[in-house]
């Protein structure tokens, strides 16, 4: 059941993404920015956790989740530190994905040559 929901919900969001790319003149970079911003906004509104509880990997595997962890980090640290939390919290959890991507990006560019 978990797997089916992950497939259905995750696929649905990807399908929406494809519509966005085909029906507008925006690029994949715009799509990624929109996804991250929506994840953060949904988290701010308190709507994101229920979606995770429902769809699991259907949203946690997507870039939307990156927006979620940014907002989640900020909200937790503002709770704990107040003003300072605004700055300390943003990358609190998000740093994991960023670090992994940068390490991988460097390693891959050292090891591989681009193929045309």
């Amino acid at each position, binding site marked *: 059941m978990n797997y089916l929901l992950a497939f259905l919900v995750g696929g649905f969001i990807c399908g929406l993404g494809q519509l966005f790319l085909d029906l507008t003149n925006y690029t994949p970079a715009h799509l990624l920015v929109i996804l991250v911003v929506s994840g953060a906004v949904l988290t701010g509104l308190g709507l994101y956790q229920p979606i995770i509880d429902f769809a699991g990997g259907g949203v946690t595997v997507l870039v939307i989740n990156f927006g979620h962890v940014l907002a989640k980090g900020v909200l937790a640290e*503002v709770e704990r530190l107040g003003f300072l939390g605004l700055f300390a919290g943003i990358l609190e959890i998000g740093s994991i994905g960023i670090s992994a991507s940068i390490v991988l990006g460097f390693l891959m560019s050292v090891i591989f040559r681009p193929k045309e």
Partner: protein
Amino acid sequence: MSQLDKTPSEYKRLIKQVSSDDSLSKKVTKAYIIGGLICVVGEVIFQLLVARGIPVEEANPLMAISMITIGGLLTGLGVYDRISQYAGAGTIVPITGFANAVVAPAMEHKQDGYILGVGAKMYGVAGPVLTYGMLTAFLIGVIKLVFI
């Protein structure tokens, strides 16, 4: 090569070259299926971690690291770009697409050197994603701080 670090006009030209004459519904279906399958892979990794007794708060980031590693490796091997020509948004919306957006320009610009090529171009797409993601999160923090 990578579709991700292109300006709108470059992107349009590139898409004209590589995209087949598939109808919109066919493209959306492909994106749905491949994107959904990538989510299932993530969910399998997540469930395996949880089954090994790893708490959910740790299993989620570990799953994300695994997916980024898979996406990065497949990009390095040139496989990811081939899948994405088929699946479109199905390979952009998942976190493997973010990994692809970092790894592909880093590789492509290796010829410009490690500082101005790899080091700088890596952030071509990740940069805006981080900037606007962080600004939104910051704003949400401000709202919480001031109003709640």
